[in-house]
């Protein structure tokens, strides 16, 4: 779906103890923009996503989604909830509710958080299940699903809430290779709907295909950003070039 919601991240800094993991990150997304974040492991990419909905609380930041603007220094519990309710988050390890079926995982936020009626939420869940191709697994518990199926439900759960921004934290990194394709296909399908999204990924080919803009991060800072063709084919910064050489020398996996 298309939103007309501008998103801005300003001056985001996060420290763990004396270690500064994110250093003054500034990033804006226009409505419908799909942005991929790439970079070496341990460089703060996942922490950046987790700071955006306060799974990790930033030490400093102003995060703006449309008319909602939250300052990390003074953020109240209500503001944090409001921010979370306008973002969807897809976890690396799926993190489905273990005590809920696939359908209940999708309806949980609609019923408990949004206050929808059970029947309205079930109808929405059935739509989502159909679009992620898991109608027949509606009543299965996560423990009975494959990794790929679990991650598709995880994406469905985030989609169902119709947030202004979808955050994907390395959505295929924990998957067995055989399930990566189906999950990437689903994300591609969502990207085609011009959903505003920020995706941290190690899948370079995928980032090139779906992203309007690629952001390269290293050492807690944004080093370089631009259209995929520019970043992948004509990177300006030596650090970007070195990273891409390492990645393409291997099998597309950027670990290391």
């Amino acid at each position, binding site marked *: 779906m298309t939103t007309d919601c501008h998103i801005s991240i300003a001056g985001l800094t996060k420290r763990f103890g004396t270690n500064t993991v994110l250093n003054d990150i500034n990033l804006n997304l226009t409505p419908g923009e799909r942005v991929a974040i790439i970079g070496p492991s341990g460089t703060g990419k996942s922490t950046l996503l987790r700071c955006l909905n306060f*799974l990790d609380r930033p030490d400093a930041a102003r995060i703006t989604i449309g008319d909602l603007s939250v300052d990390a220094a003074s953020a109240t519990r209500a503001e944090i909830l409001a921010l*979370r309710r306008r973002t*969807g988050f897809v976890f690396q390890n799926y993190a489905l509710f*273990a*005590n*809920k079926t696939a359908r209940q995982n999708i309806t949980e936020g609609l019923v408990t*958080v949004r206050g929808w009626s059970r029947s309205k939420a079930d109808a929405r869940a059935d739509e989502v299940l159909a679009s992620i191709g898991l109608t027949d697994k509606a009543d299965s*518990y996560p423990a009975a699903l494959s990794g790929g199926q679990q991650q598709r439900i995880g994406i469905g759960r985030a989609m169902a809430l119709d947030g202004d921004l979808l955050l994907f934290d390395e959505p295929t990194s924990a998957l067995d290779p055989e399930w990566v394709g189906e999950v990437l296909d689903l994300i591609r399908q969502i990207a085609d709907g011009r959903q505003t999204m920020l995706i941290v990924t190690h899948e370079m080919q995928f980032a090139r295909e779906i992203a309007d803009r690629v952001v390269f991060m290293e050492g807690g800072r944004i080093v370089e950003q631009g259209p995929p063709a520019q970043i992948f084919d004509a990177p300006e910064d030596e650090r970007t070039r070195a990273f891409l050489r390492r990645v393409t020398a291997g099998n597309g996996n950027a670990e290391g």
Partner: protein
Amino acid sequence: MRGLDLDYMAGLVPVILGYVPKTMAMASVAMVLALLLAALLAIVRVLKLPVIDQFVAVFISFFRGTPLLVQLFLFYYGLPQLMPTLSKIDGVTAAIIGLTLHFSAYMAESIRAAILGVDRSQWEAAESIGMTRAQMLRRIILPQAARIAAPTLMNYYIDVIKSTSLAFTLGVTEMMGAAQKEAAGSFLYLEAFLVVAVIYWLLVEALSFVQRALERNMQKAFAR
């Protein structure tokens, strides 16, 4: 040495069995109240609510650190000295309150451990969809913690049932109190206490059977 008076024992069985409902009622009321209180205490501890957390820590420490019998005497015989209205409390009520407080302290620790045993990702997923802490606990965390804590809590229930026998020291006539009275009249202590011991034992065995069946059933769920 003379043999056991089997006829006397056979006659005593229905008498003691007649008190099983009273024992079970006391134990069950205490168990339900203790569970509710324990869940609250555990939540306070897990969320580390300022100030209350310190009180709860002391509460748990006291009720785990002193014998149940001492606690019962303190409530029933000791406290009315401070608050004369308490002297109107009957032995059954005092025993239920004592059992509730005592076992809530133990069960709070089990429930706390069970809550901490729920995977971190479950909290994060609940946070990510914008749930409040109360919603997270009620909808996601406690149902999963209950599953983890269930076997231990069932053991505590068995413990509560056996501990109701201490109520006889507060003048309550339950299974143990009845046996004591019978023995005092007949001087057949061995027979009377043997009968009551076997009945407790069978009661607990029956519950253990139910417990094992429940646990098998719980392992099946969530894996449909």
